[in-house]
């Protein structure tokens, strides 16, 4: 097994036992980046010099006999909407392409305390608005399983980096599926924690009531390790929850006997690719074999989730993105003759078309005369979507669904042609954000050589049951061990 294909937990042991140095490991991953980055395009910015200096520091700690943290000395990649002090953070947008943060996000501060290593910042849909990473202003990211296909999104770079061996672990953010869907498209593991589990301080705001940072990794154990470091209350984010953070690795037991797994019938209806469904049903059989009890449940308001999301998220985005005015940071049009004109031209030239579409949709649904019909209505339907989950979780411990109705599809700019058709594909991930619940995507099979992701949804703050169910399936199968071929006609 190549170093760059290894997991955090394997490498940690080798580092601590002095079988491997962090400098050696970090160099091996950068060598891999040199080898494949041109094909994949996972990164917006690399930070090799600082990464190697940090690796040398960790090696010195180990040489001095210190016990290191599980992520110490292990190189990871950070989605480019998470603020890293001194390291360019662009949200893959022209409007921020020169932005260098003056403070660290809470999760970054936590990771630094654990002496981890940041390889660089990963490509994403502009401001996390998209499901293909194609709305990035910076570059295209390609799927490691077929270079002609999209990596999913919006955390496409973070997921592709894991699949292609360009990072050992990574962080993404998930507003409507942006961790889970790219994890699914790339055959890796991704978790969206319960809303409030992880501080959003320093995560560039898109839709504040939905955004959540989470890990993308090669296996469930690694995801639990990253969660241990990033979760916890933070005085800088009043929506971070003052609750204890368990040691998530303790939840990794192979045991689903008697676990009640719900299959929401609305997630298996029309619109789900038959081959994807087939793989999901095989996973259901596996869970049965392992002793879980399968129960059919209903989440009747599922069909309204997509449009509800595409009202609420743009509304919040239109307010959050009002800060890009060309005054304090970001791109500025230099020709404008007045301040209002400067703001208008800076925004018009600085934002891409998907971001403009969403800002304007949000402005419209919040505008006088339309607020009740669209925004208030959507907020009420959001309540009904939440209640559906409350009802289902009276009968079951976790829910099982496809992460996406489809596998990764060809890169052809469909988003520009027909945004609504692409929005509809988010139907399986969006309701989880609407209800603030934790969700995980794990690899569960392949169709035509492309990975299929299985989504498990848990009760609020019950990541532990989610991790246990995911771990049990993973240990009974080999899907997470398959290596991406980096093939295709690109």
């Amino acid at each position: 097994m190549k170093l760059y294909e290894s997991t955090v937990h394997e490498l940690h042991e080798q580092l601590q036992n002095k079988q491997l140095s962090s400098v050696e490991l970090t160099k091996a991953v950068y060598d891999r980046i040199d080898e494949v980055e041109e094909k994949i395009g996972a990164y917006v910015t690399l930070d090799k010099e600082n990464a190697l200096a940090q690796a040398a520091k960790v090696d010195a700690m180990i040489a001095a006999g210190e016990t290191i943290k599980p992520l110490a000395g292990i190189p990871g990649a950070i989605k480019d909407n998470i603020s890293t002090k001194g390291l360019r953070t662009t949200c893959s947008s022209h409007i921020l392409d020169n932005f260098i943060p003056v403070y660290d996000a809470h999760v970054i501060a936590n990771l630094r305390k654990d002496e981890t290593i940041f390889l660089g910042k990963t490509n994403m849909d502009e401001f996390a608005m998209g499901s293909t990473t194609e709305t990035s202003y910076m570059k295209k990211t390609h799927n490691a399983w077929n270079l002609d296909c999209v990596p999913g999104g919006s955390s496409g770079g973070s997921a592709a980096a894991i699949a292609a061996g360009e990072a050992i672990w990574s962080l993404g953010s998930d507003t409507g599926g942006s961790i889970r869907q790219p994890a699914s498209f790339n055959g890796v593991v991704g978790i969206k924690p319960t809303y409030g589990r992880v501080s959003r301080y320093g995560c560039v705001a898109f839709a504040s009531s939905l955004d959540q940072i989470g890990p993308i990794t090669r296996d469930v154990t690694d995801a639990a390790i990253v969660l241990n470091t990033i979760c916890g209350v933070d005085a800088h984010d009043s929506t971070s929850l003052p609750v204890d953070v368990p040691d998530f690795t303790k939840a990794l037991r192979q045991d689903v006997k008697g676990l009640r797994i719900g299959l929401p019938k609305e997630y298996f209806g029309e619109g789900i690719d038959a081959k994807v469904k087939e793989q999901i049903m095989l996973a259901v059989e596996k869970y049965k074999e392992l002793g879980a009890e399968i129960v059919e449940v209903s989440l009747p308001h599922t069909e309204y989730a997509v449009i509800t999301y595409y009202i609420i998220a743009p509304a919040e985005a239109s307010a959050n993105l009002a800060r890009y005015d060309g005054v304090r940071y970001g791109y500025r049009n230099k020709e404008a003759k007045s301040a209002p004109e400067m703001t208008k031209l800076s925004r018009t030239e600085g934002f891409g078309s998907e971001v403009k579409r969403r800002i304007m949709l949000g402005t419209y649904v919040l505008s006088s005369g339309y607020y009740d019909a669209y925004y208030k209505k959507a907020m009420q339907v959001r309540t009904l979507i939440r209640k559906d989950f409350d009802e289902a979780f009276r009968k079951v411990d976790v829910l099982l669904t496809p992460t996406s109705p489809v596998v990764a599809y060809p890169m052809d700019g469909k988003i520009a042609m027909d945004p609504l058709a692409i929005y509809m594909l988010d139907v399986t991930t969006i309701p989880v954000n609407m209800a603030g619940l934790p969700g995980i995507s794990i690899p569960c099979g392949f169709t035509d050589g492309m990975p299929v992701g299985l989504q498990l949804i848990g009760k609020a703050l019950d990541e532990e049951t989610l991790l246990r169910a995911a771990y049990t399936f993973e240990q009974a199968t080999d899907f997470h061990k398959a290596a991406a071929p980096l093939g295709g006609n690109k």
Partner: protein
Amino acid sequence: MKVTEKDVKYIAALSRLEISEAEMPKFTEQFNQILNYADILQKVDTTGIEPTFSILPLYNVLREDVPQEGVAHEDALKNAPAVHNDGFKVPRVIE
């Protein structure tokens, strides 16, 4: 048609954005497509249903009023496109 090109122009102005004449027809069409789809929400009876603004029980998070270090003045100016006398410089605001 929920919105005309004139409406789109107005929404763009509210959003401090400009949509070019060339982009306008397609942009308006896609905008309408999404708003038309939103009509399915009218099928849902939401009488008496409280809106969800946040999934958390919202409350004020307070702390002792003790001065803390914030972002330093010079740091706050580091990303500014133009600076003048320790402040952000912008073009004329009032004619």
